[in-house]
C-alpha cells in the first residue's frame, strides 16, 4: 500500500509539472512596457514554487516508500538534525526566498503604481456598467463634459450621462464601445463605475484594476504591439458578468487619428 502511494504520488507530481515546464497553457505574449517585470517575477516564483512542490511531494513519496510496514522492532530512529534542523532550514530557505521575492516584487509593483503618468499621456475615461465598458475621449477642446447620473439614457447611447444641451464641453466628447489607443504612447485611463464594482483586465497588457463605485481611480500604461485584444471584467458584477467585455485596439498613431476623426463624426 505504501509503495503504491509513493508511486501514485510521484506520477501525479511529475505529470502536474509537465504543462508548466512545456508552457502548454501559459500567459499570452506581453504587449506592455511594464509587463516584463511582472513576467520575470512570475517566472522566478514559478521556479522556486515548482522546486518546493516537487521536493516536498517526492520527499513524501520517498519516505512513505521507505518506511511503510517496517517489520523490525528496533528503537525508532529519528531524522538527523531533528526538529531544530528543520526549523532552521525552513527559516533560512523559505525566509530568504520569500524576502527576496517580496523585495523583487516591489520593483514590478512600483513600475505600475508608483510612477506618475507622463504629462503628455493620452487621457481616456473608461466607464464600467452592467454589463459593458464604454470609453470617452475629450474631443477637440481636450475637456471632458461633466457626468450627470440622472441624464444617463442607454437607449440613446448616453451611457455617461452627458448634458450636451447645457454643457459645451460635453458636445464634442467622443463616446465609443472600444478602447482604441496609439501604440507606444502612454495612456492614462480614468476609471469610473456607473453602478457596481467591476474590473479592467487585459491579460496581454498585464493590467488588472478594479472599478470601485464612488472612487474614481486611474491606471496608466503603454502598449507596444499593434493589434486587437480583449478587455474583460474580473469583478463579479451581476448576471451579465461573463459577457462583459470590450476590445482594446492598439493602432499606429495615424490610424488612431483617422479612427478618432471617424468616431467624432458619428457623435
Amino acid at each position, binding site marked *: 500500500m505504501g509503495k503504491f502511494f509513493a508511486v501514485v504520488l510521484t506520477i501525479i507530481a511529475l505529470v502536474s509539472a509537465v504543462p508548466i515546464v512545456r508552457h502548454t497553457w501559459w500567459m499570452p505574449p506581453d504587449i506592455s512596457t511594464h509587463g516584463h517585470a511582472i513576467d520575470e517575477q512570475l517566472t522566478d516564483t514559478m521556479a522556486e514554487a515548482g522546486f518546493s512542490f516537487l521536493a516536498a511531494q517526492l520527499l513524501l513519496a520517498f519516505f512513505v516508500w521507505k518506511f511503510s510496514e517496517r517489520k523490525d522492532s528496533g528503537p525508532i530512529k529519528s531524522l538527523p538534525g531533528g526538529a531544530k534542523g528543520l526549523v532552521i532550514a525552513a527559516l533560512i530557505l523559505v525566509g530568504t526566498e520569500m524576502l527576496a521575492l517580496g523585495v523583487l516584487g516591489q520593483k514590478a509593483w512600483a513600475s505600475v503604481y508608483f510612477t506618475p503618468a507622463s504629462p503628455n499621456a493620452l487621457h481616456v475615461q473608461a466607464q464600467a456598467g452592467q454589463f459593458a465598458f464604454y470609453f470617452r475621449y475629450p474631443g477637440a477642446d481636450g475637456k471632458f463634459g461633466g457626468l450627470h447620473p440622472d441624464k444617463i439614457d442607454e437607449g440613446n447611447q448616453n451611457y455617461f450621462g452627458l448634458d450636451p444641451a447645457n454643457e459645451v464641453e460635453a458636445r464634442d466628447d467622443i463616446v465609443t464601445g472600444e478602447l482604441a489607443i496609439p501604440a507606444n504612447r502612454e495612456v492614462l485611463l480614468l476609471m469610473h463605475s456607473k*453602478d457596481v464594482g467591476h474590473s479592467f483586465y487585459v491579460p496581454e497588457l498585464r493590467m488588472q484594476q478594479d472599478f470601485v463605485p464612488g472612487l474614481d481611480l486611474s491606471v496608466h500604461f503603454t502598449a507596444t504591439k499593434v493589434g486587437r485584444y480583449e478587455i474583460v471584467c*474580473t469583478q463579479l458584477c451581476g448576471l451579465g458578468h461573463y459577457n462583459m467585455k470590450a476590445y482594446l485596439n492598439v493602432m499606429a498613431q495615424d490610424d488612431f487619428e483617422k479612427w478618432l476623426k471617424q468616431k467624432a463624426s458619428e457623435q
Partner: protein
Amino acid sequence: MQEASAPQAQQGHHGPPEGFIRKYVFSLDHKVIGKQYYALALVAVFIGMILSWLMRYHLIYPNGKIFGLEFLSKVGAPGGVMTPEYYLSLMTMHGTLMVFFVLTNAPFAAFGNYFLPIQIGAEDMAFPRFNMMSFWVTFVAFLVLMTAFFIPDGPPISGWTAYAPLSAVGPDAGPGQGWGQNLWGISIALFCVGSLLGSLNFIATTLDLRAKGMTLMRMPLSTWAWFITACISLLAFAVLLPACLLLVLDRMAGTSFFIPAGLVVSDRLQAHAGGSPLLWQHLFWFFGHPEVYIAILPAMGIVSHILVNSIRRPLLSAKVIIYSMMSIGFLSYMVWGHHMFVSGMNPFSSLMFSFPTLTITIPATVMTLIWLGSLYGARIRFTSASLFALGFISMFVSGGVSGFFLAQPSIDIYLHATYFVVGHFHMVMGVAAIFAVFAGTYFWFPKMTGRMMSEGLGKVHFWITFVGTYCIFMPFHYLGLAGNVRRYSSFVDDFLLPLMPVHRFITIAALITGAAQFIFLYNLIYSRFRGKVAPVNPWEATSLEWTIPSPPPWNNFGDRHPIVYHDPHQYGVKGSLGDYVMQDSPEKIENES
C-alpha cells in the same frame, strides 16, 4: 453517582438525559451536539457538491438542458437551460455552504465538540446550554439560507464574498438580489452568533475543565488546534457580525454604509450617498482571511493527531507544531489586504500586506517539514485514516505553493480573479480540510458509533478522491496562468475558447470524483448499523478518548476522573500494551522528557 449529580445539577451541569428530545434533539451532551454538527455538515457538503456538478456541466454545455432543473426553478432554468444568473446563484450557494456550513462546521465544530472535552478529560463543555444554542442557531441559519432556493427570485448572485454595492443596492442589481440576498445576510449573521457561542465554549472549556495532570503542553495537537481556532473565530466572527448587520440595514433600512452616491443600477438612480464599497471589503476580509485558517488549523491538528498514531512514533516536535499554529493564527489578522491588491487600496498598503502574507509561509513550511521529517524512521500503518492524513500533507503542499504567487501584488495583477486563485483555495482550504475530515471520520467513527467503518471501501474512496481531486484542481492553475477569469457562467471570450478542452477534462473528473463520495456516504450509513463492533482502542492510540467505552457514556468517564501522566504522543516506546503508553497510565517511560 447520586450524591454527585445533585451538586452537578446546581453547576449548570446536567444529569443523564431523559427522553428522546433531551437525548437526541435539544441535547446538552457535547457528543450529541458534535454529531449534530457533523450531520449538518454532511447534508451541506452533498448539496454543495451537487451544485458544483450543475455548475461544471453548465460550463461545458452553456445551452444544454439539465433534466429536472426547471422543477427546482422555473425562472432560473426555463426549459432546463440554466440562465447566467442562476449559475451565479448556485455558485453563491456553493461557496456559502462549503465555507460556512462545511469547512467551519465539520473540522472545528463537529469533531471539536465531540472530542475536545474528552481529550482533556472533562465531563462536558463548560456551558452545555450555550453549546446546544450554538448548534440550533447554526441550524436555523442553514434553514434560512436554504429558503433562498424556494423564493421566486432564487438565491443571491453576489458570491460568498457579497461585495457591496452589488449586494447592497437591492433587487435592481439583478434577480436574487432582493430577498435572496436578505436571507443570505440574515443567515450569515445568525451563523456568526452560533460560532461565537461555540468558540466561547471551546476556550472556557480548554482553560478550565482540564483533568488533573493535563497541562496545556500535554493536550493532543487536535485539542490545541481547536483551541487556537476558537480564539481566531471568536475575533473573526465578532467582526463579520456587525458587517452583516450594516449590510442588512443598507438593504432593508435605506442606510448608506457601503453605497456611494450617484449609482445608476437598472436605469434607476439609487437614493444613497456617501457609503464606501471598500469598507465592506475591509470588514469582510478581516473576517475572511482568518476564516481560511478556521478551516485549515483544525485540519492540521486532526492530521497531526492521526499521523502520529499511524506512524507509531512521536512527531519530531509537537511544540513546534503548536507554536507554528499559534503564529499562523496571529499572522492571519495582518494579511486580509492581500485579497484587495487590485481593489483600489493604497498601493503602499498592498506592500504592507504582502510581507506578513509571505511570512505565513514560514510556519506553514515548518509544519510541513515536521510532518515529513517525522515519517523518517517510522513504522507507517496504512489505514484509510492514515492515507487521508498523508493525502492531506500532499494537498496542503500543492495548494500552499500557489500561495507564493498570490501573496505578491505584482503577480496578483495578472492572476487575481482567475482560476489560479480558485485552484489555490480549493486545494489548500477546501480539499485539504475535507481530507482531514475524512481522516477524522475513519479514525474516530468507531469511538463515535461503537462500530468500525469498512476499510476496503475506505481505501477505494481514498484512491478515487486523491487522484480525482488532483485531476480537478491542478488544471485550475493552468487555466489561471492562461488568464481564465473566474465566476463566469460561460466562456464567450475569444481567448478563453482554446481552454474549453481543459474545462471538459475538469468536468469529467469532477463528476467521477463526486460520485466516489457516495461510496463514503454508503460506508458511513452501512457501518453505522452493520459495521463490526468496535473495541475501546482499535488503533492502539494513546489519548484519553481511547480510554473510555465506544461509544462513550453520557458523562464520558463515568465515575472515574482521569489523571494524566504523559504527553499524548507516547508511541514507539516500550509499554505494557505494546509500542505505546496511554496518557493516563501511571507506568514509567524511560528517558521521557
